């Protein structure tokens, strides 16, 4: 046979007893070196630039005013998200309903609140009293049961909740609609043949599966919302950013206080990311998992790496 006549030129090792040398990745090292230079330069800036005043950052990091602002930012984020999601579920169901009135109403709502910038909405809601001075509840064209002046109802906080929650409701509705549509049509058929009504099918079969699909985008949206809350500083609502602004308007230490706010926003968004990953993996595998695995999953490539094997160990 051919290979008998022509033995290997050099003393090659037996292929069954040797492992191939792993692929080299020189580009990783070149890119890494370039990145490292930038990181060193950035750290040098942070350490040597005296305008940063790290001692001021440390002084205000846990000050009562900043922590109160932090609390308001978190409260606003969660209230706006919860109201937004509840309205969003209703809008999504209306959008997919066969009732043309529901479809149209939902479409107009989403069109409007997705189209108007949240900052414009916040200012608009805050000045609602200029448009409608009093609100009253009563029989249309009949007696009035309850009334109040708009100025007493619209505080900076309620205006902020309205603006943020209504914007969120439009985005949430589109996500949840996509989630519902991603549930296999066979599921609703199976439910129908078991004699389930539409609302039973929706509540027991479709929504549980759809919500699982929309958990990652909702987590993403929560992080967006955390950052969008900084817009409420235009309403003089002392959230995290506005608390920092109030301090630096007294002390003129603009940069250190913006850094305080930045650090807190990063801390919060990191925590929210961790929570989202935890819920996502929990839903995928139904198993409890170790924090270290969730942490490492933040850094593993979802595309090239074998999916989830690292986390569901």
């Amino acid at each position, binding site marked *: 046979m051919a290979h008998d006549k022509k033995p290997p030129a050099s003393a090659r090792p037996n292929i069954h007893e040797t492992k191939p040398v792993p692929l080299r990745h020189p580009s990783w090292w070149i890119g890494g070196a370039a990145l490292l230079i930038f990181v060193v330069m950035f750290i040098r800036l942070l350490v040597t630039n005296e305008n940063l005043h790290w001692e001021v950052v440390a002084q205000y990091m846990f000050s009562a005013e900043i922590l109160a602002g932090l609390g308001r930012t978190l409260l606003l984020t969660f209230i706006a998200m919860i109201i937004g999601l509840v309205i969003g579920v209703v809008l999504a169901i209306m959008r997919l309903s066969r009732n043309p009135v529901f479809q149209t109403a939902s479409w107009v709502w989403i069109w409007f609140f997705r189209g108007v910038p949240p900052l414009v909405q916040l200012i608009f809601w805050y000045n609602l009293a200029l448009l409608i001075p009093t609100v009253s509840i009563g029989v249309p064209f009949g007696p009035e049961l309850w009334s109040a002046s708009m100025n007493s109802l619209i505080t900076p906080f309620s205006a902020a909740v309205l603006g943020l929650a209504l914007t969120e409701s439009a985005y949430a509705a589109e996500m949840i609609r996509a989630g519902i549509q991603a549930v*296999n049509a*066979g*599921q609703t*058929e*199976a*439910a*129908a*043949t*078991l*004699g*389930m*009504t*539409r609302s*039973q099918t929706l509540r*027991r*079969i479709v929504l*549980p*599966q759809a919500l*699982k699909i929309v958990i990652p985008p909702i987590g993403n949206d929560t992080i967006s919302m955390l950052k969008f809350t900084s817009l409420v500083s235009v309403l003089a609502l002392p959230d995290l950013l506005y608390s920092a602004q109030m301090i630096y308007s007294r002390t003129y230490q603009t940069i250190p206080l913006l850094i305080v706010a930045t650090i807190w926003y990063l801390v919060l968004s990191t925590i929210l990311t961790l929570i989202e990953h935890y819920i996502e993996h929990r839903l995928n595998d139904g198993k409890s998992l170790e924090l270290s695995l969730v942490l490492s999953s933040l850094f593993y490539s979802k595309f090239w790496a074998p999916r989830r094997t690292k986390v569901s160990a």
Partner: protein
Amino acid sequence: MIATMPLLNVERLSKSFGTHRVLHSIDMSVKLGDVTCIVGPSGSGKSTLLRCLNYLEVPDSGVVFLDGNPVGMRWHGDTLRQMSFNELAIQRQRMGMVFQSFNLFPHKTALENIIEAPIIVQRRKKAEAIEEAVALLDKVGLSDRAHYYPKQLSGGQQQRVAIARSLAMRPAVMLFDEPTSALDPELVGEVLAVMRQLAEDGMTMVVVTHEMSFARDVADHLIFMDGGVIVEAGPPKEVLSNPQHARTKSFLARVL
């Protein structure tokens, strides 16, 4: 009269998808306790016919009668009215259906899949529903898989759970839409065995299938469809061994 009235009666049923006419004025009837197998080439309309029986597909014209009552519509005095979805749901409880792709609820275990509709739809007590579900799982040979999720089960096991899920509603008739077509060949037998047992127990069944030996052994009545019409129907042994129509002959020559 009641004893001779067929359980299911289909009269002049037609259905088109766009310009494509899938069913041409179909007439058929199913007697209580009978097993009817519908065979025919792909695209012959047999699945559409089955799905019209429980109104998953709404026929363009023609009527399906269940126990003498029209499906999907009702008499209100002398006016015929379209049923609401929830009225239709009550009618559908009488017709169980098993799908080619199983369609188990993935977020529920085998047991939860089975007890869902009895509890939610028929408002039966949970303990009673569980007891019946356990008995049904035993009947389909899966008593040890009660707490498994669908994705942890093989195709054949999933389909047997799906059969149990339908039976839990105590339907008058079971509709099978190519129940073994999505299965690996070695798993087909276990599902057919469950269906054979069901037929022996006297369940009324309408089965769309490609399994000719099942049709020959189990069916009381065989329907051969092609091009949206019933080409030939009768006792399975006669139709299979002595087909009258050229289209039946050429189909059987290909599949047998």
